[in-house]
């Protein structure tokens, strides 16, 4: 359990503090400010964790789109043409690019979690490297994937 620094400690006197790291509680005690988003120093594992959750949520939307793809295909050529018309529009392609990004990142970040669960890569240095690596993997894989789709003529604007 942490205690606030003692008043009178000239190097770190909370009653003298001008940095906003301490607040006076309603009971008069000086306590460190509770760490809200605004006062956390951003670090890459934190970004990695937030992105893992956001991409997971987005991929749930992607699962609905995949189900709609199956539905359109099962309803025959006209329904499928309508579906591919929407999904092949610039907005549709942007959505699918975003989903590719989410999938590639969530995959890498998920593997990162499995590594951590095995008890490996938990020092700050390796944890940061795994988080950065996951983000780089997600971006590189999705950009290469889509560049390939356009270059091979599978997809066009």
């Amino acid at each position: 359990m942490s205690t606030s620094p003692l008043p009178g400690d000239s190097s770190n006197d909370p009653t003298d503090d001008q940095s906003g790291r301490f607040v006076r509680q309603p009971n008069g005690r000086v306590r460190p400010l509770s760490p809200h988003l605004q006062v956390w120093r951003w670090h890459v594992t934190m970004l990695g964790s937030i992105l893992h959750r956001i991409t997971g949520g987005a991929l749930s939307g992607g699962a609905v789109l995949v189900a709609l793809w199956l539905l359109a295909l099962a309803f025959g050529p006209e329904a499928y043409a309508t579906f591919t018309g929407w999904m092949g529009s610039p907005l549709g392609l942007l959505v699918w690019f975003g989903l590719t990004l989410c999938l590639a990142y969530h995959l890498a970040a998920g593997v990162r979690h499995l590594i951590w669960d095995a008890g490996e890569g938990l020092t700050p240095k390796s944890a940061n490297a795994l988080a950065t690596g996951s983000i780089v993997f997600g971006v590189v894989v999705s950009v290469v994937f889509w560049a390939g789709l356009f270059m091979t003529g599978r997809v066009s604007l």
Partner: protein
Amino acid sequence: MSLGTKSYIKGVKVSERHGAGEWMQERLSSLILVPLTLWGLWSGWTLSGAGYEGALAWFRSPVNATLLAVTLLVSVWHMNMGLKVIVDDYIHKPVSRNTLVGLIGLLCVVLAAAGVFFIVRLALGSAPLPAGFGA
């Protein structure tokens, strides 16, 4: 595991209710999804721009149809757990939380059932819906 039975693995206490089971399910579904996701990316590559006939041809391979059904079911399982954790973290009012978790469960069941239904029809080469319903 019955309530109140304490057990330990490597000195770490195992949850007395359903926490340990959920933890295992999350990891198990993740592990299964790693190869399936790579296969899914490859399939997405194949199916992009393949058109209606190309997609039907893809479904005529039993391997593709089976892997897609497995990917869908494991993804929905994984998605249900993931969305539930998000709701548990941010929604504190029991009524709202339980309602949302219920709706997510319903969405997942509908996605799984509809998805498998369509995949089976496509794999069997059934006539397009709705005219060929039951055919």
